[in-house]
């Protein structure tokens, strides 16, 4: 039986030493994320949102505490299993899009299917379908540099879901976009959340981007300040 909790962090902490000083980027975060939920994490820059994401995605190792995804403590996974987790279970969306500049929109979206061992034709077909679904059916063979910021983020979203992950981690997905484009991206994320049942965790410092959330976590100085449930 699958639990309702898809991600749980227990007293999670990550400290850095920077110039002889200990930086407590994340400092004792205990959080449960429910399957199919849209969770926003709000906080000023430096609140520890990105570090928290890196810990949840298994890109970074915690100083203390645990990350549990689908009842598995990810600190017990080896490099291969972590890569599998990032490839199959988690889709990443970044503030700076991070598309591969030498690849076309279509190839960018298909990239994670390569690591998933999906046959090339099938990967390309799926990538094409997803690009169409995010409204970029006429931009398949454009390079990232030939796309607007909003279009690039759409490509990144299509890439994030191409392997049908259970979780989307979106780190400031609207941070480099103007208000209107940002709203459209958030709308798209919410739509994916509702239609595909994918759990979305989106970090933002922009309070205008949280109205679609089921819950909002307010972070400051590496700790959770409070959690608010949004009225439906």
């Amino acid at each position, binding site marked *: 039986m699958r639990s309702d909790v898809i991600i749980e962090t227990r007293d999670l902490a990550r400290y850095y030493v920077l110039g002889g000083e200990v930086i407590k980027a994340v400092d004792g975060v205990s959080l449960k994320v429910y399957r199919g939920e849209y969770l926003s994490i709000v906080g000023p820059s430096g609140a520890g949102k990105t570090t928290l994401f*890196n810990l949840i*995605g298994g*890109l*970074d190792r915690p100083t203390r505490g645990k990350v549990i995804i*689908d009842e*598995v*403590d*990810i600190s*017990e*996974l*080896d*490099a*291969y*299993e972590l*890569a*599998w*987790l*990032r*490839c*199959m279970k988690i889709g*990443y969306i*970044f503030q*700076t899009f*991070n*598309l*591969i*500049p*030498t*690849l076309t929109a279509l*190839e960018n979206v298909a*990239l*994670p299917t*390569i*690591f*998933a*061992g*999906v046959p*090339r034709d099938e990967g390309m077909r799926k990538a094409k379908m997803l690009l169409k679904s995010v409204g970029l059916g006429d931009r398949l063979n454009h390079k990232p540099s030939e796309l607007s910021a909003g279009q690039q983020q759409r490509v990144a979203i299509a*890439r994030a879901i191409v*392997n049908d992950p259970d979780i989307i981690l979106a780190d400031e997905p609207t941070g480099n976009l103007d208000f209107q484009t940002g709203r459209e991206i958030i709308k798209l994320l919410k739509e994916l959340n509702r239609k595909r049942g994918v759990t979305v965790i989106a970090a933002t410092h922009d309070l205008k981007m949280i109205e679609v959330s089921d819950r909002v976590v307010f972070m400051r100085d590496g700790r959770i300040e409070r959690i608010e449930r949004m009225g439906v």
Partner: protein
Amino acid sequence: MGCVQMDEGKITFRLSDAFRLGYDNVKRRFNRAFLNIAAIGLGIAFFSTLSLMDTIFRLNSQIRESGSMIEGYQYGLVLVSFVVCAISITNSMLIAVYERCREIGTMKCLGALDQHVLKLFLAESIILALLGGVLGFGTGFLALVLVCIFMGFRALSIPPSTLLLLLGKVTLLSLALSMLATIYPAYKAAKLDPVEALRYEV
């Protein structure tokens, strides 16, 4: 071992994909790639010309009797040129790794393993080696023809089998050269910490 149910496929990076992505990168960042190809090409050209001259000297009794021959130190110079060429490839590849830092970080974020990044860079190095080898062989042969015209030898007296053998030799040589020069940068790329790599501003 963890207990993730890895029932939804395995993480992999097919050789064909490594070469396709590598080829894309060589094609779309051709300026840097060309410098590497030229570096390999020049070294190989030097070696090819010298080796072919040697053949001509051996085949031509008149020259042989006049005492002209390729001296050991000239092959020494070829060796030095290979070292210089390898260092320049390593240098250029290291810069490429830093340039592509975010790209590598992103790929790791999307599920690439260290060994996949290594594979990608080595595939690129093989592509560069093959292009450089062919270019070098062609240039070397051309140089030989020019030298022969200038000195009044008959370049075409070289048997095709010798040419083919040399082409095979220089291909292997440029592969070895390019891969040797790329191992360290490729290893560095593979070992990049994705958190650091994604933070890196170019």
